[in-house]
């Protein structure tokens, strides 16, 4: 009796983009806009399979940005189905240390590594740094008890951003990260299918 010699689970991974070319371009455009206008929120209304444990927005972002050249870090306890999905669709190497990763992926419910434990890039190639993809509980631009004011390149004056579900000292880490410019870590905050971009140039007011 021939067994199916696929790896961990006998179930095939969830599907990727239904139309890879168009959808990855749309997602890329959303991510680009998010980084160009830091703190603003962009939606990815896309069809793709979603492995258990990741949001639709995180999945779409990884399908678009991760590939054989971008090592990805995932928290150790993340569902094996997520690893299988990324291996299949993205072909990205999965690494055990955040500083070896181009994308540090933190799904909801998992602890994020400190920004200083990620790769801040190289003086000759500052863009070779890690980008953190962080799932959060809530994300909007309305003032609230959880809001901060952002300023810097891409923001006309100031941008209000409310986020819940960040590590407690995230904004403190962020200020330290900002001091490293041109080095530093960039981040995307993701909730459901919504994205918000934080390039390292963003200033968080005290």
């Amino acid at each position: 009796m021939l067994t199916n010699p696929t790896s961990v689970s006998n179930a095939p991974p969830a599907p990727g983009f239904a139309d890879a070319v168009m959808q990855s371009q749309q997602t890329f455009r959303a991510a680009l806009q998010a980084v160009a206008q830091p703190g603003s929120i962009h939606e990815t209304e896309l069809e793709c399979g979603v492995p258990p444990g990741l949001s639709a927005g995180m999945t779409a972002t990884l399908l678009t940005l991760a590939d054989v050249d971008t090592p990805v870090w995932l928290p150790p306890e993340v569902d094996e189905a997520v690893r299988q999905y990324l291996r299949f669709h993205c072909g990205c190497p999965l690494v055990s240390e955040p500083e070896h990763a181009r994308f540090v992926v933190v799904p909801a419910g998992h602890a994020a590594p400190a920004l200083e434990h990620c790769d801040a890039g190289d003086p000759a190639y500052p863009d070779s740094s890690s980008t953190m993809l962080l799932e959060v509980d809530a994300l909007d631009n309305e003032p609230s008890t959880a809001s901060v004011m952002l300023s810097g390149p891409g923001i006309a004056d100031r941008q209000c951003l409310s986020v819940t579900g960040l590590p407690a000292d995230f904004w403190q880490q962020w200020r330290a990260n900002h001091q490293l410019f041109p080095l530093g870590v960039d981040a995307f905050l993701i909730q459901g299918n919504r994205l918000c971009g934080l390039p390292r140039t963003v200033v968080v007011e005290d």
Partner: protein
Amino acid sequence: MSVSTPYAPTSPPADAVVRRAAWMRVLALAEPDALDEAVQALGALPPHRALRNPERGMAMVRARSGGTGAQFNLGEMSITRCAVTLDDGVMGVAYVQGRERRHAEQAAVLDALLQRADWHDRIQSMVIAPLAQAHSARAQHQARVAAQTQVEFFTMVRGED
């Protein structure tokens, strides 16, 4: 900077892997038209759906310096890959040199069917064995033609050991 970390799965029986790698090799090395003919001759196949539509891309060919030493990147080769699932969840995969989408898709479908007890023997005998034989015959013929250009030295004393 790439990290080649071959992932070691919780293992399927080793000989099942060897058998599957063997038929995947035959499917990849087949002439596309010969594979298509063999597939048509099988008649109606169970339905499958695409997990990954045939996608054209490349693999970087690696070699070793001096033929034996440290690796270096030689250059890329075109590859088409495809993955399908049958209704019972069996997954078929193909990675095939070149840019023939039909070749990759047919190889993936056959890979899936070969994993099923009810199709395995039929596909082995009607598709795999003849394609393997054709490839081997081509290679043998080439080797015998090349042998016509082998120089016969009439040496009195054979060289070293």
